[in-house]
């Protein structure tokens, strides 16, 4: 029961730093396990340290890390770099799918942000588009996350077909 509770907490937290002792508060995590959406796929082990070496924080975190935003669409309003309450993706990108309701909200902050993608959308759009643009990094679904048993059932995958050359190296 104790372990179950811990697992449930870990899933609800969404991203738990793993791989040895956690770094100090003000240092970015080295490895992040993305498991809040794990259902058809196993959790993703995201090498955060590797990406720090390749990209500016703002490229993924927008303005929330207190580094200036780079996207000209953002700098229209976000003239100064203000640190967000949290830099985690899930703080703004919810697990709920975006819907037309977002466009109908009268709040001033939604005049522009009427179209915020979900957490899954943020991961897959940000990761894949960048990997394709720089021609590096995993692109295929199972390059990042292996199927769970439920996922295999969902996609009608049998073990014999999963490893067949037909399903390998398919162009995206």
């Amino acid at each position, binding site marked *: 029961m104790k372990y179950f509770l811990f697992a449930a907490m870990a899933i609800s937290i969404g991203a738990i730093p793993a791989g040895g002792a956690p770094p100090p508060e003000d240092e970015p995590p080295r490895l992040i396990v993305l498991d809040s959406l794990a259902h058809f796929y196993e959790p993703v082990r995201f090498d955060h340290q590797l990406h720090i070496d390749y990209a500016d924080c703002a490229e993924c975190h927008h303005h929330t890390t207190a580094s200036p935003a780079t996207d000209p*669409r953002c700098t229209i309003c976000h003239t100064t770099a203000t640190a967000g309450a949290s830099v985690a993706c899930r703080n703004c990108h919810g697990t709920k*799918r*975006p*819907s*037309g*309701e*977002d*466009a*109908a909200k009268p709040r001033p902050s939604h005049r522009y942000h*009427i*179209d915020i*993608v*979900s957490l*899954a*959308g943020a*991961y*897959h*759009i940000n990761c*894949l588009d960048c990997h*394709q643009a720089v021609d590096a990094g995993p692109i295929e*679904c*199972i390059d990042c996350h292996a199927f769970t048993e439920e996922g295999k059932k*969902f*996609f*009608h*995958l*049998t073990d014999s*077909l*999963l490893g067949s050359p*037909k*399903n390998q190296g*398919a*162009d*995206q």
Partner: protein
Amino acid sequence: MKRISRRSFFKAGTTAALAGILGFKSAPAQARAFSGYAHSKAVLVDLTRCIGCRSCEAACNKEQGLPAPATPFTDQSVFADTGHLGHRRPDDKAYTVVDRTDSPLADHPLFRKIQCNHCLEPSCLTACFVNAYTKTAQGAVIYDPSVCVGCRTCMVACPFSIPAFRYDSALHPRIMKCQFCYETRLQYDRPPACVEACPRDALTFGERESLLRIARHRIRTRPDEYVNHIYGEHEAGGTSWLYLSPVPFAEAGFDTTVPTEPIINYVKDFLAIVPMVLTIWPALFAGFHLLARRNRVHPDSADTEISDE
């Protein structure tokens, strides 16, 4: 008894016929203004986000209890295996398919999800003479197999060639098409299964008016990534599934010859006079006939011919 003169008969007959024509013509003229139910739901498909992972196909298969596919939904070779049509299309075993187009205008393959577009004024519905189709207030075009007689006129009427027929079932032949997950989801205001399965938010569910706002917002904020056109905003009189594309829609495999008028508008005038022809004309012309022959005796009659001249 007052006899009706030939002249007064023609006068009354012509007036009745004209009233009939004018009366029937005013009704469709009003119906032409219909632009969808208020607050009806829709889905926005963004081709710049779709990568052809086919998760939507798998979700649809599971939700609708469709037959198992020939190859797993991860199989990417289906995009090349398009048959004589040159593109994939939904059939009786798949309500939705993703089709790949290799446009020279895009530096990567384009994927578009194809399913029933759930027109605001569906031509399948108007073509069906047993009313097997219903456009629900939530926006779905649903089909009732219990009244269908299998005439397949809807398949001919659909401008997007969507309804498919289950030919291989001798006992339960029926039309197979996307139902917008009406029974299980849409009637409870939940998004269809395909939308929830999309990993890249290429599909967005919501009220049609809100999605048009979002679509325009995307075009406005990223003018270099989209063409300034929302496919389905006006096509076929407007559809509940809307599309955004990075290349002109004809390049992405869409049929851009679909008229912006609802298909029914092309036949409304004709259909309006059909009841009149069937009800007024027989009585009118039978009357003319009887009037013209009223004093004539049948030539075969044995009686002596009487002339009243």
